[in-house]
């Protein structure tokens, strides 16, 4: 197809689609930011406000925020835009997709940009919490800048604790206490449960993350942090974690059977239909604004040690974004992750601010003093570890999530499930493994 023909068609499309905008003598660099909406529509507006402010402060750049759905859909849309030859200048990408995107050559290293600012990678990443480095720095190169992050958190309805004669200041800290508390909190009417003691989300994406939290609390690792071709599904730490979850359902009967979606879990908690839940810190603001009862939050209870995976998203620059657009994207990324903006976004959402300096701002200090629950969420960062990320993260994650669903529906024993998940995950990662760890010098 010739250029003329293409431009004619494009011109026709333009004219047909929307009114022509006035042309400026010196047009600002136009960039798009793809972003998922983490909780609700309010945040989409907050994002628009944020970008508007950026455009006012940076007249040479015109950034457009583009809402792209959930985390998974944002990945899909980014790839679609790249295939169409129109990569967005920057994307807020789920933090555990970065490794896969790097392996497929779809995002670019930011080392040169950092160097041009006169910093080393360590200096640059030093502004963010250590727990976040594992999902952003790959093979010693920076591929993502943490934007908003989360960890799983235990939420407890303290009214229910009091009602059951338990001390509302003493929340379960280990699995033993979790089970005994959940048993006391569960209410039954004959065989029918009218209130659950505990709920944990197990839908795609959420289930894997929660299971990772349980596994890590059980001393496990889930995946090889340094190598994208290994997961440790069929291991004792994971078997313990999965059995624990399964026991809550089938043995102790304090947790409903089958898959529970994240929204269903928070909905049940807010409606007083479950007394405790494990949910993202990213839901903290939503719970705070909607709970009509006193609640408290605590670290994810441990069996062997306190440990949780991080969640949330990082800013990335897709491959193919060059020149002025890349520079503009970099300006935007730095602006959005600076302490004040980071702190503001954190207060709006409940996610914690990845930039450590955000917590030194006066507004943030005041906010934490007023909302101690937000403070506990941040403290848990000390024990946070990288989120699982492998070659083809999504299908590898799905392999275990499908088995998790089978266990929670009493279709399989935890051991059977883990063996099957391991086999499937190994099969998915095999091309990568054969090309890396198993590829040996022949002469």
């Amino acid at each position, binding site marked *: 197809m010739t250029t003329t023909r293409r431009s004619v068609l494009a011109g026709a499309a333009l004219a047909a689609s929307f009114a022509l905008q006035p042309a400026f003598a010196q047009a600002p660099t136009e960039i798009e930011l793809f972003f998922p909406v983490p909780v609700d529509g309010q945040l989409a507006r907050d994002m628009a406000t944020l970008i508007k402010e950026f455009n006012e402060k940076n007249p040479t750049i015109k950034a457009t925020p583009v809402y792209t759905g959930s985390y*998974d859909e944002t*990945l*899909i849309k980014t*790839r679609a835009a790249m295939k169409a030859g129109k990569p967005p200048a920057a994307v807020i990408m789920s933090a555990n997709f970065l490794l896969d995107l790097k*392996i*497929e*050559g779809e995002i670019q290293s930011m080392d040169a940009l950092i160097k041009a600012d006169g910093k080393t990678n360590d200096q640059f990443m030093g502004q963010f919490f250590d727990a976040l480095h594992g999902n952003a720095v790959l093979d010693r190169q920076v591929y993502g800048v943490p934007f908003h992050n989360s960890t799983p958190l235990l939420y407890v309805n303290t009214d229910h604790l009091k009602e059951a004669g338990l001390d509302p200041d003493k929340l379960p800290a280990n699995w033993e206490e979790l089970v005994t508390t959940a048993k006391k909190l569960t209410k039954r*009417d*004959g065989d*029918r*449960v*009218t209130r*659950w003691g505990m709920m944990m989300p*197990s*839908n*795609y994406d959420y289930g894997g993350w929660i299971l990772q939290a349980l596994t890590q609390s059980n001393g496990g690792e889930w995946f090889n942090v340094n190598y994208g071709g290994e997961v440790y599904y069929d291991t004792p730490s994971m078997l313990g974690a999965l059995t624990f979850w399964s026991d809550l359902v089938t043995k102790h009967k304090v947790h*409903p*059977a*089958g*898959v*529970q*979606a994240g*929204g*269903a879990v928070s*909905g*049940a908690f807010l*409606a007083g*239909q*479950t007394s405790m839940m494990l949910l993202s810190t990213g839901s903290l603001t939503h719970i705070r604004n909607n709970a009509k009862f006193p609640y408290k939050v605590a670290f994810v209870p441990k069996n062997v040690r306190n440990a949780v995976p991080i969640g949330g998203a990082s800013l990335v620059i897709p491959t193919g974004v060059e020149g002025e657009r890349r520079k503009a994207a970099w300006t935007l990324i730095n602006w959005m992750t600076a302490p004040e903006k980071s702190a503001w976004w954190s207060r709006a959402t409940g996610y914690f601010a990845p930039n450590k300096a955000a917590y030194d701002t006066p507004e943030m200090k005041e906010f934490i003093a007023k909302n101690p629950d937000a403070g506990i969420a941040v403290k848990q960062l000390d024990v946070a570890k990288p989120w699982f990320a492998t*070659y*083809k993260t*999504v*299908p590898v994650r*799905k392999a275990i*999530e*499908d*088995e998790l*669903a*089978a266990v*929670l*529906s009493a*279709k399989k024993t935890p051991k059977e499930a883990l063996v099957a998940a391991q086999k499937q995950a190994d099969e*998915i990662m095999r*091309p*990568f493994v054969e*090309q890396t760890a198993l590829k040996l010098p022949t002469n």
Partner: protein
Amino acid sequence: MAQAVLTVGKAKTWSVPDWRPRRTTVLAFALLAPSLLFLALFTYWPVVQVLWQSLHGQVRVGGPQAYVGAQNFLKLFADPAFRKALANNLVYALGTVIPSLVLALGFAMALARSSRVNALFRALFFLPVLIPLVAAASIFLFLFLPNIGLIDYHLAKLAISGPNWLGDPDVALWSIMALTVWKNAGYYMLFFLAGLQAVPADAYEAAILDGAGPWQRLRYVTLPYLKPTIGFVLVIGLLNVVTQVDHVFVLTKGGPSDSTNLLLFYVYQQAVENYDAGRAAAGTLVMLALLLVVTASSLRTLERSFGEKDA
């Protein structure tokens, strides 16, 4: 310009030589051209691309596409998730098309007569057709929500605890099917309403004179007249169950444990989650082959509906 007019004029008056396309042929293709252009761009050409892609795949991770022969198909059929999706689609097709059809026929027969009340009820059954499938799915997400959702809330008042509608692998597909029936029955009802107009009133009168009861009239008068409509709706319904998966996208994403995974959703997963364009293309072709079988086996019905043969 004058020359052109002259040429056309000549072609009109002269007898047409055998090798030259006849005027009506030129006219026919001129009339078909706009459609054929768009069909070529957005139907035939993509199929060619899918055919090519089904024989290619990434041999090196992150590398270019290379010829891999039948490997994509072998891997496809070896994938338990694909076989599961295939089986699910079969259950889904039977479990949605037949109930929708029966309900639609029932609605149409009950509301066949034009009256204000009937018009209201027809409209009522048609409402679900008018709202976007994504939006309907959002509403049903709440209906099926465990504990606090619409269904469980009302069941709890009767002291019954319902199953985990979307979270139990044994139940989830049936919940999805309920939504599909709700969404589509009203649409098919319109076709039956149209079809019922073709049943002559004296056919009923004759049947009544013969002493036929209502069920006999249904069996021997209504159904035979409606045969083409039933065939047509059947085909439309079968095409719908393969090509519409927005609600799976919103409600379950194919889970739990692939229990609601349907072919198109599987293909979509392969393309965007597994990032395996080759296997996705192979899956698309299998799906197209199935659609082809559905359409081919009902070709006579379609031809009759669109009047190719009996015209």
